């Protein structure tokens, strides 16, 4: 892997709210490579959707940089943005709200092609039919309206629209959260199949960690506008190192009564604080169950930087690294000295 497809560096997005600043995204950095899926997870209000919208230019970044194949996107004009717009597409959570109810599927799918002046109407119609086929819908349903489809089928239409311009990157903002379990699995499998077929990169935003685990090789966990841990799937689910990641994983109920009866749960106290007045230092410190293991007042005074650990992942936490129990057989240096 050479140059990343997408490089996000120290991205900030602040909104003025009643004379104060809401720091929705507060210094987020990550890379995304061609054909890769990066998961961006966190609870409501952590800023994950704002990151997505700032990358595609729906919001203007307050500070920081977004580079696509090395080209800076922050601060460029709409006209210069246009060629990149074609290559970065987005899928939204609510397939009911993101399709125009008065347009037929044919016109929904041909619209991006028309905007980017690609092909004649007849060619566009053929392309629309191909797209429907690619997402597993009947191409003959091209003259139907969104309300004639079920929720899962509408999400397929949203995906087909995102594919129309042959993008390199699709930002998926909670694409399966509004769907029922049996339909959710269909869409997850479809996204995986399309990724392989078209060598797509996905930035996959979700709050459901079990779904993320199925789709993403690398995952970034956000809390109050910042990334607290970014790691490979195996690292994150095998041995989460940030106390928030640990609590998040432990909060997921497991569909097995036996496991649910016996497993240890970490129940975090309190609520996520308001991003209008975030706590000092590490913003997670008021709820952190492991705070007492850091000496002095460091957690409430000093913002922890996102720094690489010995196993290559990054974490923003004052806890000493040596504490972490490595995965068995992971070749972690600490494991070797112990044995």
């Amino acid at each position, binding site marked *: 892997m050479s140059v990343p497809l997408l490089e996000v560096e120290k991205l900030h997005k602040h909104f003025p709210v009643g004379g104060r600043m809401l720091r929705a995204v507060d210094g987020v950095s990550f890379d995304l490579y061609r054909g890769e899926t990066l998961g961006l997870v966190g609870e409501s209000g952590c800023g994950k959707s704002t990151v997505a919208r700032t990358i595609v230019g729906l919001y203007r970044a307050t500070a920081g940089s977004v580079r696509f194949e090395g080209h800076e996107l922050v601060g460029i004009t709409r006209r210069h943005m246009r060629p990149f717009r074609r290559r970065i597409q987005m899928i939204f959570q609510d397939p009911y709200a993101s399709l125009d109810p008065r347009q037929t599927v044919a016109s929904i799918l041909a619209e991006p092609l028309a905007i980017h002046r690609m092909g004649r109407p007849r060619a566009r119609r053929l392309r629309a039919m191909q797209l429907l086929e690619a997402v597993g819908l009947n191409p003959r349903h091209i003259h139907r309206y969104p309300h004639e489809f079920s929720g899962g089928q509408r999400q397929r239409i949203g995906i087909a629209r995102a594919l129309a311009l042959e993008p390199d990157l699709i930002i998926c903002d909670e694409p399966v959260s509004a769907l029922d*379990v049996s339909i959710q*699995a269909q869409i997850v499998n479809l996204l995986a199949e399309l990724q392989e077929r078209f060598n797509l990169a996905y930035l996959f935003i979700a709050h459901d960690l079990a779904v993320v685990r199925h789709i993403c090789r690398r995952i970034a966990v956000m809390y109050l506008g910042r990334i607290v841990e970014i790691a490979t799937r195996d690292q994150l689910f095998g041995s989460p190192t940030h106390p928030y990641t640990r609590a*998040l994983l432990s909060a997921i*109920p497991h*569909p097995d*009564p036996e496991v649910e009866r016996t497993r240890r749960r970490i129940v975090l106290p309190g*609520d996520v604080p308001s991003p209008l007045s975030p706590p000092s230092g590490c913003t997670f410190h008021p709820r952190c169950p492991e705070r007492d293991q850091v000496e002095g007042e460091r957690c409430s005074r000093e913002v922890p930087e996102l720094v690489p650990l010995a196993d290559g992942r990054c974490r923003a936490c004052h806890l000493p690294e040596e504490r972490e129990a490595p995965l068995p057989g992971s070749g972690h240096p600490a494991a070797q000295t112990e044995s």
Partner: protein
Amino acid sequence: MALLEVKDLRVRFETHHGTVRAVDGVSFDLEEGETLGLVGESGSGKSVTNLALMGLIPSPPGVVEAESVRFKERDLLALPPEELRKLRGNRIAMIFQDPMTSLNPLLTIGRQLTEVLELHKRVSRREARRAAVAGLDDVGIPSPERRLKQYPHELSGGMRQRVMIAMALLCKPDILIADEPTTALDVTIQAQILELMRDLQERHGTAIILVTHDLGVVAGMSNRVNVMYAGRLVESAPAAPLFARPLHPYTAGLLASVPTLDGDPEAQLFSIPGQPPDLAALGEGCAFQPRCDFAVERCATQRPTLDPPLAGEPRLSACFESARLREGFSPAAREEKA
């Protein structure tokens, strides 16, 4: 005798598409102090079932019928509205998915809590206030005195759901119907609320009907589980055997579609083919038949009844082919068949 006995409950809505049979012959019992999980996807009829029990289906367009709905020797459907109102919120309480829309935004938390008591318990204002403070304290709300003066918008989602639970439990009901109580909440807040519900049930012994689409939540909370599909109960069993060995293809498919934290992340997720049926155009046979891998010829024309798969077994399945599921269900088995 069970605390609540529902026999052949039917709810239909007359719409311009035709008659929608939202609940189509549902029967179940709820025992004292147990948690009964009610699982199903959107439109399966799980919420409508509960609204019907509470007499909250608007008519028209809704029509509610049943052989009987017995709660402590009384037939709920035969009660005059005045009597039903005395039970509702008092003996049978309900909490909903979205606490913001179920709390009145114009009244303080205190007023909403004391109103319940004044309505059902004939207590003085002062006593009601004392009970409200105790109720908030019981659900782990810090500084309850101060909260009484606040309005719903001043609280977070998790706190609002705690207020709803406190309100539901004020009259110490026999039954708490919790309809997707944690669906609108973040996972860490969901974990708090589930912990709270487990604790409250242990202390008060309230029977709970827990409606949810989240199989993980059901697994951690329920003694028994009812699975609904297209307005019908398709399986009913104690939680452990249901999750260990589902005997209805829909339950099995649903369980297999859920991504878990311990499955093979590289494997393709199992998915149930097709879409849920149109309730206004259900055929003669089993409603799941068009999506079912186990379907045989008669499934298309004959509707299977909810029976014990083996005589005397303490569980029920509405499937002609339950026996084949006993040998196990796996996506691999489907591929072999294909």
